[in-house]
């Protein structure tokens, strides 16, 4: 469906995207994960033909975006980082315009109506876009991308600016779309990618650093297990008791929360489950366990662990940071 070959983009001597290659099969939902300025948007802009690559290309259904752009573009629905909306138009006028611009051949009223139902914007159909909230604008942007049922949907951070309920709706929608169409979505939110995608590509500083299923990635990421607990009892003795638990790697004091209760962050080996042991030992002493929750890996940690392998020296890092700053300026 989509074949990305050695895509590279250089901005004034700095590499924003550096030799990124991957392929996506039909019906796959691919997550593009990376911190801000990692090159996600630049990569997407090159796949959709908004930007030309410095070298390398992308093939959509075998059509080269550089040599046969019009045909290739007709197969893509694109939601850029900032939805490309005309503020002075009503939702109806805007979707009519995009329908004509994309030369869609499906029955107009029916097709647009269907999409509006799908992304839930039918209730604002006649209103001016400039008067609508960010959540609505984002969904109009998605609606615009869906016009003409393109084979390949590219969504750049589709859930930004939506409230939690809308986020769940849109994730559901993307999953439904992914049954027929190929979807690429970018995000810097790990749980989002985990919830929706079949496959994840991680990009950092313009380079592809991982390409795997979310499950594998998570396993590879979380070499150790982390638990945050809150216990009522004397701090020093608690600390000693926790440190003495079998398989404990590290105990961090997080301080006193309510009076007489303390929080600790526990780090153990991946295979080790200390929860039962912890409960019984505390029960023995008569110190009540008030709360216990697993502390997931934060995105920063995921990136730290992923990028520590791909980085060679501090000099290179400064270079890449510069190019990020520059990309920010271009955006």
């Amino acid at each position, binding site marked *: 469906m989509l074949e990305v070959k050695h895509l590279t983009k250089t901005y004034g001597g700095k590499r924003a995207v550096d030799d990124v290659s991957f392929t996506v099969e039909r019906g796959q939902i691919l997550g593009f994960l990376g911190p801000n300025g990692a090159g996600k948007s630049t990569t997407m802009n090159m796949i959709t033909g908004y930007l030309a690559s410095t070298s390398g290309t992308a093939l959509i259904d075998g059509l080269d975006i550089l040599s046969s752009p*019009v045909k290739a573009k007709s197969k893509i629905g694109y939601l850029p980082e900032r939805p490309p909306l005309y503020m002075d138009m009503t939702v109806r006028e805007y979707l009519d315009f995009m329908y004509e611009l994309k030369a869609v051949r499906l029955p107009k009223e029916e097709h647009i109506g269907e999409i509006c139902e799908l992304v839930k914007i039918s209730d604002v159909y006649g209103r001016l876009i400039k008067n609508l909230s960010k959540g609505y604008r984002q969904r109009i942007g998605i609606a615009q991308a869906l016009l003409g049922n393109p084979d390949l949907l590219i969504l750049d951070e589709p859930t930004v600016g939506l409230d939690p309920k809308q986020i769940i709706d849109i994730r559901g929608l993307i999953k439904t779309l992914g049954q027929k169409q190929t979807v690429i979505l970018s995000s810097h939110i790990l749980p989002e990618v985990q919830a929706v995608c079949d496959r994840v590509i991680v990009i950092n500083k313009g380079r592809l650093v991982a390409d795997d299923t979310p499950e594998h990635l998570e396993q590879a990421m979380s070499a150790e297990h982390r638990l945050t607990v809150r216990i009522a009892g004397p701090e020093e003795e608690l600390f000693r008791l926790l440190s003495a638990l079998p398989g404990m790697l590290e105990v961090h004091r997080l301080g006193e929360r309510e009076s007489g209760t303390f929080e600790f962050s526990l780090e153990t080996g991946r295979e080790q489950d200390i929860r039962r042991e912890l409960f019984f030992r505390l029960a023995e002493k008569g110190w009540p366990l008030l709360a216990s929750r697993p502390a997931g890996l934060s995105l920063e940690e995921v990136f730290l662990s992923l990028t520590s392998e791909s980085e060679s020296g501090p000099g290179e890092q400064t270079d890449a940071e510069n190019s990020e700053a520059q990309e920010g300026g271009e955006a």
Partner: protein
Amino acid sequence: MLAILKREMRNYFTSPIGYVYLAVFYFFAGFYFFGSTVLPNTTDLSNVFSSLFIISLFVLPILTMRLMSEDLKNKTDQALLTAPISLFSLVMGKYLAALAMFVIGISVTLAYALVIALFSTPDWAMLAGHFIGLFLLGCALAAIGMFISSLTENQVVAAAGAFAASLGLMLVDGLSSLTQNTLLKKIMDGLSFNSHYTSFTQGMLSLKDVVFFLSICAVFLFLTVRVFEKRRWN
């Protein structure tokens, strides 16, 4: 191309720009029609048309200033440039919208001709020549304005740039009379919009002038496409 043309036309009339342009143009055209045709009791519209040269130079930037800048600023160019249309039809769609507005403006002169026709017979052939001349001038100026608009995402800068270009085109005449160098003088005279336009208002429809305006127009349409191309590759 048609979708863009339609959107741009609608935009002119849902924003004040279209009305401001038409009001200004109609006001000045009406003023000169009254002053140089009605008052002196003549059927000759050539004075009206020669005055409209300056008016066109100064009102066309109103039409072209937002053509490209607005899209660049609001990032709506991402929708246009990732749609399955060629760059050329994108540029042409926008260009034709500005040109259509210009024609709506200059069409008021046809109404003047009809007013004259009520009382006497205007020289229709001469009028056609005038009208074609003004239309060609608009073609060239709109292309220049659009090109300037594609260079910046700031509408004010685009308008100021187009005004400056118009002023420059007027100054070329003044400069050519000052220069001693014959070659330079020849080049300046050749580039003078005024002298090419004046032959239309004198009732001449010469191929040379038609080609001049059409080639200015073609050059700047081409340059606009190149600006977009270049932005993609940067």
